[in-house]
């Protein structure tokens, strides 16, 4: 992202930077504090003085050391806030914090401003570039824009998205990714570690926009985003949310918003010099879309707002560690033909105080862009007594629309039932399409290129041969529209599927649709999440337009603002589709008792009959039964005869039954030993079967 030459220009910076001033100030106060403490302990005054002078010396020395090194290893932090009223009566606030650590010797590294956790992360896992975003709510492409750097960089899919590029040999990329997910999971209090499993991430080759084979991408659509994720993110800032622009982040007002995306982007910058490591650039952004409370009665006037009404807090001063802290206000769709004619020198007031709207503060600078104005405010002047509370008051109803991406994409599921379905991606031409200049004129034909990148979880078994493409409601063969396609099919329970395709559509296209069929898979009982009956998520697809780049084009020369230079860079226009919810068949978890009963019954029946078959010998059993029956009738007869005998008073004749009894006894003992042997045999067979059936 950041090029080396840019970096060098940053080194040439004025000597005594604000943080150095602060450092000196801090040192002085520390000395005073120590002397106070020593006095309190009533030490020997001479001794105390000696100690004091020693401390002062030490501190001074450290300061000088830092000053000496500063020219080479400057760590810069800047904070910026961009405010932008949106056409649908909402306000976008985009916080941008940038932290740069210059290249330095990788041994014995020490940071002043740069968060140690991140630099350790980069060193340990050799991360080349990484982006992590936590998002809640959906970006409204129609109203909030889809063709400006802000939306193409900050409109993120719901939940957590993480991608990282590593600087390790190809074989170690996966392990690095796994370790990184665990580290980030701990760092940001989120279940990013679920991206560790190979079923949840993919390795995009070209569809993602970054061409690298060491890139891994994964997203967790169901991750709930809340303050517990914001707090560790704020901890990475030197002033946290105590001071400066980040003090605005009042949790209730931030999370009351319609969209909330917190992003962390880090990239390493090779120094090019021998012996030096690489520099790290950490970019933290928070994008919030808020609805100002409109008190005004008139419905068509945009609501007026101020920082304090939006956030419930004020900016009372800059973060002293920041190199620059600015607030920008971007107004789109102003009657520019009126304002264009205004001379910025003489009638500057007209820009911010006119018939249409009024700003509560005078901007320090006004930047003009093709279809918007950017008002710059320096918050240096604000203090506790006079907080920086920028407000915008609309006086006349105004309407404008944001720039749209060339095609508006929606994705939905088709079909019904628990067996199969289809995924459809629908691309619709937006109104602004004609005005765009990004079309590619190849072979004399004007075409729009669109990349689609999609991950399919393995339980959505996609049949890639069923891919159908409709352009302007007419089915087109793949060879005509499909420029490039890369498919990696999923493996059950092992890896997720991935599809990258490049469509080349004619410029005058009105709509294009892609549909692809899938079968729903069956999960193992322990693979179901706790709320299985909700259904399963298919992560967002990414639609990007490789020939379209969004950037803000300023007429004036820019100051060294990281945010604006970021906007000035050309960024790929991309939009994420909705997350889809696929209902899968779920077992009835609420009835374990039934399940246990049924399985036990089945087992009992199975093993009972099996044992019966193995154990029984029909012939012998019959003989045994017969003898038993004979005996029984004999006994009855005996009893009767006994009775008779008693009645008659005669002695009884003994029946020769002892021999048969002994025989049966012998039989039964033989039986038992055989039985035992057979049971062991069956058990062994069952164990072997179990062993071979489980181990594929």
């Amino acid at each position, binding site marked *: 992202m950041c090029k080396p030459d840019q970096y060098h220009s940053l080194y040439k910076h004025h000597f005594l930077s604000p943080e150095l001033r602060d450092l000196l100030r801090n040192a002085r106060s520390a000395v005073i504090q120590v002397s106070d403490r020593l006095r309190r302990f009533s030490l020997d005054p001479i001794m105390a003085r000696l100690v004091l002078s020693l401390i002062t010396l030490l501190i001074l020395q450290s300061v000088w050391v830092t000053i000496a090194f500063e020219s080479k290893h400057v760590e810069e932090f800047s904070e910026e806030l961009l405010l932008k009223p949106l056409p649908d009566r909402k306000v976008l606030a985009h916080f941008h914090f940038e932290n740069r650590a210059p290249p330095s010797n990788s041994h014995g590294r020490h940071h002043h401003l740069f968060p140690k956790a991140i630099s350790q992360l980069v060193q340990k896992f050799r991360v080349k570039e990484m982006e992590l975003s936590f998002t809640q709510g*959906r970006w409204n492409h129609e109203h909030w824009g889809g063709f400006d750097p802000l939306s193409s960089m900050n409109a993120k899919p719901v939940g957590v998205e993480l991608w990282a590029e590593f600087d390790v040999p190809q074989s170690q990329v996966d392990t690095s990714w796994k370790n990184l997910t665990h580290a980030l999971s701990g760092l940001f209090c989120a279940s990013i570690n679920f991206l560790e499993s190979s079923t949840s991430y993919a390795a995009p080759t070209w569809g993602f926009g970054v061409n690298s084979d060491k890139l891994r991408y994964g997203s967790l659509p169901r991750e709930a985003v809340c303050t517990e994720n914001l707090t560790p993110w704020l901890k990475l800032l030197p002033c946290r949310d105590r001071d400066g622009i980040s003090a605005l982040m009042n949790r209730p007002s931030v999370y009351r918003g319609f969209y909330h995306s917190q992003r962390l982007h880090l990239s390493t910058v090779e120094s090019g010099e021998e012996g030096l490591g690489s520099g790290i650039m950490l970019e933290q952004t928070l994008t919030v879309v808020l609805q100002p409370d409109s008190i005004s009665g008139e419905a068509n006037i945009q609501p007026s707002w101020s920082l304090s009404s939006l956030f419930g807090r004020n900016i009372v001063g800059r973060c002293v560690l920041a190199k620059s802290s600015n607030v920008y206000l971007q107004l789109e769709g102003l009657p520019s033909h009126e304002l264009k004619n205004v001379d910025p020198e003489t009638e500057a007031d007209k820009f911010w105080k006119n018939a249409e709207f009024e700003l509560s503060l005078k901007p320090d600078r006004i930047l003009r862009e093709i279809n918007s104005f950017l008002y710059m405010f320096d918050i240096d002047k604000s203090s506790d007594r006079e907080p920086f509370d920028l407000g915008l008051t609309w006086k006349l109803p105004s309407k404008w629309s944001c720039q749209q991406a060339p095609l508006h994409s929606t994705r*939905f599921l088709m079909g019904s039932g628990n067996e199969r379905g289809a995924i459809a991606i629908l691309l619709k031409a937006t109104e602004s399409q004609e005005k765009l200049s990004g079309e590619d004129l190849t072979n004399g034909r004007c075409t729009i290129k669109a990349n689609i990148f999609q991950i399919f979880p393995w339980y959505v078994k996609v049949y890639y041969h069923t891919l159908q493409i409709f352009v302007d409601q007419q089915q087109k063969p793949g060879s005509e529209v499909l420029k490039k396609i890369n498919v990696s099919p999923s493996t059950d329970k092992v890896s997720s599927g991935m599809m990258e395709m490049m469509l080349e559509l004619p410029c005058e296209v009105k709509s294009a649709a892609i549909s692809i069929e899938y079968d729903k898979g069956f999960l193992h009982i322990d693979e179901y999440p706790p709320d299985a009956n909700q259904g399963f998520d298919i992560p967002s697809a990414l639609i990007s337009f490789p020939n379209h780049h969004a950037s803000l084009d300023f007429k004036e020369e820019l100051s060294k603002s990281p945010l604006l230079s970021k906007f000035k860079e050309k960024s790929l226009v991309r939009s994420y589709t*909705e997350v889809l919810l696929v209902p899968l068949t779920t077992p009835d978890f609420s009835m374990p008792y039934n399940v246990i009963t049924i399985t036990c019954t089945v087992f009992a029946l199975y093993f009972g009959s099996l044992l019966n078959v193995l154990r029984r010998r029909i012939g012998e059993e019959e003989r045994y039964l017969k003898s038993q029956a004979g005996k029984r009738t004999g006994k009855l007869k005996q009893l009767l005869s006994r009775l008779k005998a008693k009645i008659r008073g005669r002695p009884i004749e003994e029946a020769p039954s002892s021999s048969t009894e002994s025989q049966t006894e012998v039989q039964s003992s033989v039986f038992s030993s055989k039985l035992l042997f057979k049971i062991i045999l069956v058990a062994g067979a069952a164990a072997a079967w179990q062993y071979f059936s489980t181990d594929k």
Partner: protein
Amino acid sequence: MTTTEKRDEKEEVKTDDGSPKIKSRPIVQLGIFLISHSPVFSVVFSAAGVLALLLLPLLAKNTYISENALMPGSARSMLSNRDVSGGSKLVKDIKNHEGQGVEVQRLIGQHMSEMGAEIYYQKFHPEGNQFHPLRFFSGPDSDTLMGNVSCASYGVNVAGIIRAPRGDGKESIVLVTPYDFINGGDYEALSLGIASSLFSLLARVTWLSKDIIWLVADSRYGDYRPVAAWLSEYHTPSFKVSDLLKCDEINTSGSFRRAGTMAAALVLKVDGRSERFEDTLSIYAEASNGQMPNLDLINVVNYLAVHRQGFYVKVEKVVSLLSSSWLKIFGEIFEAVGKVAHTLNPNWNFGIPVADYLEASATLASSLYSQALGIPTGPHGAFRDYQVDAITLKVSPRFPPDSKARQHDFFLRGAQLLEGTIRSVNNLLEKFHQSFFLYLLTSSSKFISVGVYMIAFALLVAPLPMVAASLYIDGCNVLTKSTSNPAENLKSWKWLGAAKQVFALHLMGFIVSLLPYFICQVPGQHSPTNRSIMWVTTSASLLLITFVTIPGCSPFSSRLHGTKWAVLKSVTISAAFIGLCLMSIINFATAEIGALLLVPMCLMVRPIKPDLRSRRMKSMLRALCSMVLVTTGFPVMFFAISRGLTGKGLVGLSLGGEFWTWLESLWAWKSATYLYIGMVHLPCWLLCLCILFNPS
């Protein structure tokens, strides 16, 4: 002693071929016992089955909310008077434009978009339910098959979507209000008022986690069709060119929008004036083939309507049963028994008052009937085809439609009821799965679960296998005695001849049930009566062909088979048993009612000739019984009788037409009852007829 043993052995050899067993197992003994006393047991079981059915109202349990997440009524309603007056305004506007179809649609669309919803119009064809015999159980398919379409008749649905502010857009809740844009209707407009009040509330609340879709279905072609067309477009769109787009009366250029997987749907209708003092709410839940929505949905609506809004909630019932004297007698008996039981043990509280019993029975009968018919009782049926839980709520206000003063209150309460329901569904993390899907309602707050109502059916069909086995043994014995030819004496194949006949008649039944499709294809306009005559003649000729071609099939065949009817009856009963059991899985209510008809008929039927010849009182009575049962068992006859019972007397040829229309509606709605009648009931009835006229 020895002589007796020898005799025993001889007997064993006789009874069981070759395998001498002294004492069979208890279960076999029980089976033999049941089979040998089958007449007694069949009477006992059948009577118990009918009694169990009559006892069902007593066994009904109170409904309870099974899913804890629903929490109905725990939140205070946020509906304000402003929302309601918005609804009133819409109703007034609609009345001003009444009859001007397009204007009203535009008006509603405008009203929706003013509230902040995304709107679109969808055009559909009025006729969509095309019968196809081979596509009975397949899922709903798209309307692509329709050939040339005319712009003369098409409907336009208006739909609006409110996106949940912080939701992820994976799920949605649908609210449907059918409205006839051409003919209007004062009461129907009120449903739009309620929905609009609710919609304007939902557009500004922050607690939504699922998107809300409000569909104003164009009900000029019936309530069901527009909803089905919309759902079909939602789930199975065709990306091909639709001819309807050219019919441009209203601008439908806005694309069809979707909002994820549907969690639940509510259909709201306002019709007629309530006869009671309170406003009445009727709940309709039966979808196609007796499928029911999850009981929790009904519970939530019932709970909120009764305990929060004070509606009088009712479920459809068979009114004629309320005044039937025989049911009253049963009710009195049950009440008396309940009282006696209560005096014996105060914990036995199963007795209910006669009035309650009558009410519950009438509701149960209606519930059974609607499920058995397999035709959805409202537009909610269309949702069930996509596994979406849906119910229709019909609200009847107690005031005339032009009463402005009451209207406000009515809107408020109706919208609050819907708000509470939607809020409960919104709370759901998973889809409805906790509560019952298989149940019968005896009142809006009482239900009979599958475990209880299965008993009645099980008791009814239990005698069938017993009687079949006993008849088979009898028939075999008689056959062995009668035939001297040993080659024909293969014992295990005796059923083959009978099975051939049964199979032939079932095949015929299958063909007969396919015939209406081909009759419909006959060119030219035919009245239903003509069509039914065509059907009857083709069926009769088919029957004759069957009798002629397959020897031994005809009851009038010259080949005398003595007591062959016993084996035939045994096979018939087996076939009926299998058919009923299969049907009980597909649609329980059909199987239950079918069993009530089939079981007595199959059990009672005997050749009529010997009975008539014997001229004994008992056998005459028996003959009469079988005659009556076989007559009522004829589907047309039963249809006529049920018509007569419900007070629509029909005679002669118009009956045929009426029956034809009824059957046509059954197959048009893809009701499995139609298949049951054609493939189980009709063949069994024919077989019974064969047995009845058996010349033995």
